[in-house]
């Protein structure tokens, strides 16, 4: 029987958040503080200059604030909900993922989809407020908005696979704390969350071009603020799509191998 209603498993993490109001309050506070600080920082940095690294003040502030909002898309507290792959491996509850008529990879994907849609609601609400108060500027045209939306979708897809690889590591190492710390730092640095990649030296930009992080945020945000013109969007979208395909194949291979390694504690 086809799993017609299994997609509803996507509600797991958002439901957990809604049942934990303190976490929602904390998320709201954190997002507000981050947006205010980041906007103040970039406004301050541009106080004495007009254009730097090809970005003017409005572009830089818009880029930085959108980066903060976008990072909210996958920032839910799975750890508190005891629902990370790391915890399932540790507590031995990962076995249940293999005892349901919904393959673990599908369950993982549905759960991530739910998280990202929930995060998107936060990001859109934050965007609407920032737009209304003039912290970010709107896209130049409907075409830019459309390309940005498509690029953002691909970017989140790439990010999903990157996070999945780190989670899949647990099947071999049982722990992924160090890998996760490296990932968070690399993701924030190389995707342009800390600062737009255009501010970094050329060798750094070249290096990051060989990694998937740039495809997650830097590309869609650069398209939004106009740092990458629409004429170059096709090539950038193709690179993002290529990363999606490569990572999809790689993670599929890892899922297959992981299934052979599900040995939780005990005889």
């Amino acid at each position: 029987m086809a799993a017609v209603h299994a997609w509803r498993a996507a509600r797991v993490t958002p439901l957990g958040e809604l049942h934990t109001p303190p976490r929602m309050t904390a998320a709201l506070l954190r997002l507000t503080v981050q947006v205010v600080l980041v906007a103040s920082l970039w406004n301050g940095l541009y106080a004495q200059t007009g254009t730097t690294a090809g970005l003017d003040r409005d572009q830089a502030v818009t880029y930085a604030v959108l980066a903060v909002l976008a990072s909210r898309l996958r920032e839910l507290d799975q750890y508190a909900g005891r629902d990370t792959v790391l915890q399932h491996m540790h507590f031995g509850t990962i076995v249940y993922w293999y005892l349901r008529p919904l393959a673990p990879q599908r369950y993982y994907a549905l759960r991530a989809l739910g998280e990202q849609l929930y995060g998107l609601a936060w990001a859109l609400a934050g965007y609407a407020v920032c737009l209304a108060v003039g912290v970010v500027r709107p896209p130049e045209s409907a075409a830019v908005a459309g390309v940005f939306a498509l690029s953002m979708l691909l970017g989140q897809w790439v990010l999903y696979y990157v996070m999945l690889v780190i989670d899949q590591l647990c099947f071999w190492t049982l722990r992924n704390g160090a890998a996760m710390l490296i990932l968070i730092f690399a993701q924030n640095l190389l995707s342009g969350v800390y600062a737009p990649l255009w501010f970094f030296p050329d060798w750094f930009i070249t290096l990051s071009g060989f990694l998937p992080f740039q495809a997650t945020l830097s590309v869609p945000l650069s398209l939004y603020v106009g740092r990458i013109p629409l004429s170059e969007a096709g090539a950038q979208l193709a690179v993002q799509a290529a990363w999606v395909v490569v990572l999809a194949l790689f993670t599929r291979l890892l899922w297959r191998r992981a299934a052979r390694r599900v040995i939780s504690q005990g005889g």
Partner: protein
Amino acid sequence: MSGSIEVRGLSRTFHTTVRRPGFAGALKSLVNPERVAKEAVVDVTFDVAPGELLALLGPNGAGKSTTIKMLTGILTPTAGEARVAGVVPYEERERNARNIGAVFGQRTQLWWDLPVRESFAILRDIYEVPEREHRARLGEFDELLDLSSFWDTRVRHLSLGQRVRCDLAAALLHDPPVVFLDEPTIGMDVVVKEQVREFLRHQVEERGRTVLLTTHDMTEVERLAERVVLINHGRLVLDGSLDEIRRKFGSTWQVRATLADPHARVEPLPGIALLRHDGLKVVFGPAEADAPTVHQALKAVIERYEVTDIAIDEADLEDVMRAAYVQAEAVSRAHAEVPSGARAEGV
């Protein structure tokens, strides 16, 4: 759908890295790791009929959980084959998942942050259970396990007993014909244990589910199982009814009598050994071969001697299983010493 379980020559070998002791050893293991093979389950064969509750017993590390993991499709056997409700579990995991329910001790499959009822609803969606059936089944489980008093509570706030009851319900919500329970009542108080046993009895007798249960609680075995399979060091050493096991390992009874005649000549009886003789007090026990049951021995003593008082001490199932484990250990040692080509069947 038939809920039978067929296991034929099932084996599973794990390959692990040996960690050498000390700093130098650890360094050596890092550079040149030594891999060893450990046979967790070896050539295990048994059947469980539809609607039967079988207790899979054995000391810690005997291979019970590994066997269950192969039957649930989590692990693939190294050799042999298994069929659960007609499906090879490790080849058709998703199809097998619809036929089975499982509870692994204190490991919960419920979502920690959600109220129990939400967890049930997610499982309903995953298993595609129609809403009406879902509600009816929840109602039935509520009657037996008293779930409604806490099913709106988040899982993280439940007591162990409440959580395990919810896990049992979660495992059966999709109406599986076969249920695997790996030490489901571990750590629970006696009241909840009894409630769970009643629930399981109902599932077997009224719903006709096939249950494979592992436990160290012999009261549970006594109350629920008619048949047990005993494994040790991964090998099946016994497959039989509780009566057979008692006959084989439980002959540790004693008949204590006070004789009426101080001059009576006291001697062993057929199959009955004289253990102690102190004045008027005598104690009989089973002889090594052809020992009668305790009731036959009681009758024989009364018929042979004039007694003023008589009492029996019978080993409980805990003692019986201890004796079985000890014998199983001896068999395992014998297996280890005999070359593999020359191995005979166990106990």
